[in-house]
Protein backbone atom coordinates (compact mmCIF):
# COMPACT_ATOMS: atom_id res chain seq x y z
CA UNK A 1 0.00 0.00 0.00
CA UNK A 2 2.97 2.29 0.49
CA UNK A 3 1.83 5.55 1.97
CA UNK A 4 -1.61 5.26 0.41
CA UNK A 5 -5.04 4.40 1.69
CA UNK A 6 -7.16 1.39 0.85
CA UNK A 7 -10.91 1.21 1.03
CA UNK A 8 -13.04 -1.93 0.70
CA UNK A 9 -16.49 -0.92 -0.49
CA UNK A 10 -19.33 -3.46 -0.43
CA UNK A 11 -21.72 -3.70 -3.37
CA UNK A 12 -24.40 -1.68 -1.62
CA UNK A 13 -25.24 1.91 -2.47
CA UNK A 14 -25.59 2.67 1.26
CA UNK A 15 -21.80 2.68 1.42
CA UNK A 16 -21.12 4.57 -1.82
CA UNK A 17 -20.52 7.73 0.21
CA UNK A 18 -17.26 6.36 1.61
CA UNK A 19 -14.98 6.65 -1.46
CA UNK A 20 -16.50 10.07 -2.18
CA UNK A 21 -15.63 11.24 1.34
CA UNK A 22 -12.07 9.90 1.15
CA UNK A 23 -11.40 11.41 -2.29
CA UNK A 24 -12.82 14.80 -1.32
CA UNK A 25 -10.89 14.81 1.96
CA UNK A 26 -7.59 13.98 0.25
CA UNK A 27 -8.01 16.51 -2.55
CA UNK A 28 -9.15 19.22 -0.11
CA UNK A 29 -6.13 18.44 2.06
CA UNK A 30 -3.79 19.45 -0.77
CA UNK A 31 -5.21 22.97 -0.70
CA UNK A 32 -7.07 22.49 -3.97
CA UNK A 33 -9.84 24.86 -4.99
CA UNK A 34 -13.41 23.88 -4.19
CA UNK A 35 -14.05 23.11 -7.88
CA UNK A 36 -11.37 20.42 -7.76
CA UNK A 37 -12.97 18.91 -4.66
CA UNK A 38 -16.36 18.81 -6.38
CA UNK A 39 -14.79 17.31 -9.51
CA UNK A 40 -13.20 14.59 -7.36
CA UNK A 41 -16.56 13.76 -5.78
CA UNK A 42 -18.23 13.57 -9.19
CA UNK A 43 -15.49 11.44 -10.71
CA UNK A 44 -15.55 8.93 -7.85
CA UNK A 45 -19.34 8.77 -8.00
CA UNK A 46 -19.25 7.94 -11.70
CA UNK A 47 -16.51 5.35 -11.45
CA UNK A 48 -17.32 3.56 -8.18
CA UNK A 49 -21.04 3.98 -8.84
CA UNK A 50 -20.75 1.85 -11.97
CA UNK A 51 -19.65 -1.08 -9.82
CA UNK A 52 -21.76 -0.53 -6.71
CA UNK A 53 -24.96 0.04 -8.69
CA UNK A 54 -24.37 -3.38 -10.22
CA UNK A 55 -24.04 -4.87 -6.73
CA UNK A 56 -20.29 -5.35 -7.13
CA UNK A 57 -17.85 -4.79 -4.28
CA UNK A 58 -14.69 -2.86 -5.11
CA UNK A 59 -11.31 -2.22 -3.54
CA UNK A 60 -10.32 1.42 -3.94
CA UNK A 61 -6.76 2.60 -3.32
CA UNK A 62 -5.72 6.23 -3.08
CA UNK A 63 -2.20 7.57 -3.56
CA UNK A 64 -1.34 11.22 -3.01
CA UNK A 65 1.04 12.83 -5.47
CA UNK A 66 2.12 16.33 -6.33
CA UNK A 67 -0.90 17.98 -7.94
CA UNK A 68 -2.76 14.72 -8.33
CA UNK A 69 -4.47 11.99 -6.32
CA UNK A 70 -4.35 8.63 -8.09
CA UNK A 71 -7.21 6.23 -7.47
CA UNK A 72 -7.44 2.59 -8.50
CA UNK A 73 -10.81 0.86 -8.48
CA UNK A 74 -10.51 -2.91 -8.63
CA UNK A 75 -13.26 -5.48 -8.09
CA UNK A 76 -12.04 -8.34 -5.86
CA UNK A 77 -14.02 -10.70 -8.09
CA UNK A 78 -12.06 -10.44 -11.31
CA UNK A 79 -14.29 -12.90 -13.17
CA UNK A 80 -17.00 -10.42 -14.14
CA UNK A 81 -16.80 -7.51 -16.55
CA UNK A 82 -17.95 -4.03 -15.57
CA UNK A 83 -17.80 -1.33 -18.18
CA UNK A 84 -18.45 2.37 -17.96
CA UNK A 85 -21.40 3.82 -19.81
CA UNK A 86 -20.63 6.35 -22.58
CA UNK A 87 -22.13 9.07 -20.39
CA UNK A 88 -19.90 8.12 -17.44
CA UNK A 89 -16.87 8.17 -19.74
CA UNK A 90 -17.80 11.62 -21.01
CA UNK A 91 -18.27 12.95 -17.48
CA UNK A 92 -14.97 11.47 -16.37
CA UNK A 93 -13.23 13.02 -19.36
CA UNK A 94 -14.34 16.42 -18.09
CA UNK A 95 -13.95 16.16 -14.31
CA UNK A 96 -10.86 13.94 -14.01
CA UNK A 97 -7.27 14.52 -15.08
CA UNK A 98 -7.30 11.03 -16.54
CA UNK A 99 -9.16 7.75 -16.42
CA UNK A 100 -8.58 4.42 -18.12
CA UNK A 101 -8.28 0.68 -17.64
CA UNK A 102 -5.52 -0.57 -15.37
CA UNK A 103 -2.28 -0.99 -17.31
CA UNK A 104 -1.26 -4.23 -15.61
CA UNK A 105 -3.96 -6.50 -16.99
CA UNK A 106 -6.20 -6.56 -13.90
CA UNK A 107 -9.82 -5.62 -14.45
CA UNK A 108 -10.48 -2.19 -13.06
CA UNK A 109 -9.75 1.46 -13.64
CA UNK A 110 -7.13 4.03 -12.75
CA UNK A 111 -8.35 7.56 -12.14
CA UNK A 112 -6.29 10.72 -11.72
CA UNK A 113 -7.89 13.51 -9.70
CA UNK A 114 -6.67 17.08 -9.94
CA UNK A 115 -5.34 18.29 -6.60
CA UNK A 116 -3.37 21.17 -5.22
CA UNK A 117 0.41 21.16 -4.95
CA UNK A 118 1.38 19.36 -1.75
CA UNK A 119 3.70 21.32 0.53
Amino acid at each position, binding site marked *: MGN*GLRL*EVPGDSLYAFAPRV*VAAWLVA*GTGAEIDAVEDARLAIDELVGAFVAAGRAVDVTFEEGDGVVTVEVVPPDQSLEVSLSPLAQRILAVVAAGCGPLPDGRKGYRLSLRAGAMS
Partner: protein
Amino acid sequence: MTVALEIPTDDRFVGLVRHLAAQAARRAELSEEQIDDIRVAVSEVVANAFAAQRRAGAADPVRVEIGIDHEIRVAVLDRGDGVDMAVLDLPGTEPDEPTLGLLITRALVDDLRIERREGGGSEVCLIMAREPSA
Protein backbone atom coordinates in the same frame (compact mmCIF):
# COMPACT_ATOMS: atom_id res chain seq x y z
CA MET B 1 -21.81 -5.61 5.73
CA THR B 2 -19.10 -3.06 6.37
CA VAL B 3 -16.93 -0.57 4.56
CA ALA B 4 -13.28 -0.92 5.60
CA LEU B 5 -10.54 1.70 5.44
CA GLU B 6 -6.85 0.95 5.89
CA ILE B 7 -4.68 3.95 6.73
CA PRO B 8 -1.02 4.52 7.53
CA THR B 9 -0.09 5.61 11.06
CA ASP B 10 -0.30 9.32 10.37
CA ASP B 11 -2.17 11.63 12.74
CA ARG B 12 -3.69 13.68 9.93
CA PHE B 13 -5.88 10.68 9.07
CA VAL B 14 -7.69 10.95 12.41
CA GLY B 15 -9.68 13.75 10.80
CA LEU B 16 -10.56 11.60 7.80
CA VAL B 17 -11.86 8.75 9.94
CA ARG B 18 -13.80 11.22 12.09
CA HIS B 19 -15.43 12.65 8.96
CA LEU B 20 -16.16 9.21 7.51
CA ALA B 21 -17.73 7.98 10.74
CA ALA B 22 -19.87 11.12 11.01
CA GLN B 23 -21.16 10.61 7.46
CA ALA B 24 -21.92 6.97 8.27
CA ALA B 25 -23.77 8.05 11.42
CA ARG B 26 -25.89 10.39 9.31
CA ARG B 27 -26.85 7.47 7.08
CA ALA B 28 -27.78 5.47 10.17
CA GLU B 29 -30.09 8.39 11.03
CA LEU B 30 -28.46 9.14 14.36
CA SER B 31 -29.25 12.46 16.02
CA GLU B 32 -26.91 15.45 15.66
CA GLU B 33 -25.89 15.02 19.29
CA GLN B 34 -25.04 11.38 18.67
CA ILE B 35 -23.08 12.30 15.55
CA ASP B 36 -21.03 14.76 17.60
CA ASP B 37 -20.39 12.03 20.17
CA ILE B 38 -19.32 9.60 17.43
CA ARG B 39 -16.87 12.19 16.13
CA VAL B 40 -15.20 12.53 19.52
CA ALA B 41 -15.27 8.81 20.29
CA VAL B 42 -13.78 7.77 16.94
CA SER B 43 -11.07 10.42 17.22
CA GLU B 44 -10.04 9.08 20.63
CA VAL B 45 -9.96 5.46 19.48
CA VAL B 46 -8.03 6.10 16.27
CA ALA B 47 -5.52 8.37 18.06
CA ASN B 48 -5.03 5.59 20.61
CA ALA B 49 -4.49 3.05 17.82
CA PHE B 50 -1.83 5.24 16.19
CA ALA B 51 -0.09 5.74 19.55
CA ALA B 52 -0.17 1.99 20.23
CA GLN B 53 1.28 1.25 16.79
CA ARG B 54 4.12 3.72 17.38
CA ARG B 55 4.94 2.22 20.79
CA ALA B 56 5.06 -1.24 19.21
CA GLY B 57 6.96 -0.06 16.14
CA ALA B 58 4.29 -1.62 13.93
CA ALA B 59 4.32 -0.68 10.25
CA ASP B 60 0.95 -2.25 9.44
CA PRO B 61 -1.91 0.01 8.47
CA VAL B 62 -4.67 0.68 10.99
CA ARG B 63 -7.93 -0.81 9.79
CA VAL B 64 -11.29 0.86 10.43
CA GLU B 65 -14.51 -1.04 9.70
CA ILE B 66 -17.84 0.78 9.70
CA GLY B 67 -21.21 -0.93 9.59
CA ILE B 68 -24.50 0.89 9.17
CA ASP B 69 -27.89 -0.43 10.23
CA HIS B 70 -30.29 0.79 12.91
CA GLU B 71 -26.99 1.51 14.63
CA ILE B 72 -23.47 2.44 13.67
CA ARG B 73 -20.65 0.08 14.52
CA VAL B 74 -17.05 1.25 14.22
CA ALA B 75 -14.20 -1.20 14.78
CA VAL B 76 -10.61 0.03 14.90
CA LEU B 77 -7.96 -2.67 14.52
CA ASP B 78 -4.28 -2.04 15.20
CA ARG B 79 -1.07 -3.99 15.66
CA GLY B 80 -0.03 -1.99 18.68
CA ASP B 81 1.04 -3.05 22.14
CA GLY B 82 -2.48 -3.92 23.20
CA VAL B 83 -4.95 -2.54 25.65
CA ASP B 84 -6.96 -4.35 28.27
CA MET B 85 -10.60 -3.51 28.98
CA ALA B 86 -9.90 -4.18 32.66
CA VAL B 87 -7.77 -1.01 32.95
CA LEU B 88 -10.95 1.03 32.56
CA ASP B 89 -12.27 -0.22 35.86
CA LEU B 90 -9.18 -0.09 38.06
CA PRO B 91 -10.19 1.83 41.18
CA GLY B 92 -8.12 4.64 42.63
CA THR B 93 -5.61 4.97 39.80
CA GLU B 94 -4.88 8.03 37.73
CA PRO B 95 -5.65 7.03 34.12
CA ASP B 96 -2.93 7.50 31.52
CA GLU B 97 -3.76 9.20 28.21
CA PRO B 98 -4.91 6.09 26.28
CA THR B 99 -7.03 4.95 29.20
CA LEU B 100 -8.54 8.41 29.55
CA GLY B 101 -9.41 8.34 25.84
CA LEU B 102 -11.19 5.03 26.26
CA LEU B 103 -13.02 6.25 29.37
CA ILE B 104 -14.28 9.23 27.36
CA THR B 105 -15.28 6.93 24.53
CA ARG B 106 -17.16 4.57 26.85
CA ALA B 107 -19.07 7.51 28.28
CA LEU B 108 -20.14 8.66 24.81
CA VAL B 109 -21.26 5.46 23.08
CA ASP B 110 -23.83 2.77 23.80
CA ASP B 111 -21.31 -0.05 23.88
CA LEU B 112 -17.52 -0.33 23.84
CA ARG B 113 -15.68 -3.61 23.44
CA ILE B 114 -11.94 -4.22 23.39
CA GLU B 115 -10.41 -7.47 22.31
CA ARG B 116 -6.87 -8.60 21.71
CA ARG B 117 -6.17 -9.65 18.13
CA GLU B 118 -4.55 -12.84 17.10
CA GLY B 119 -1.04 -11.92 16.00
CA GLY B 120 -0.91 -8.89 18.28
CA GLY B 121 -2.75 -5.64 18.67
CA SER B 122 -6.26 -4.69 19.63
CA GLU B 123 -9.71 -4.41 18.15
CA VAL B 124 -11.73 -1.64 19.71
CA CYS B 125 -15.37 -1.68 18.71
CA LEU B 126 -17.86 1.03 19.52
CA ILE B 127 -21.58 0.92 18.87
CA MET B 128 -24.20 3.62 18.92
CA ALA B 129 -27.86 2.89 18.18
CA ARG B 130 -30.42 5.17 16.61
CA GLU B 131 -32.58 6.84 19.22
CA PRO B 132 -36.24 5.85 19.04
CA SER B 133 -38.25 8.58 17.35
CA ALA B 134 -40.46 10.61 19.64
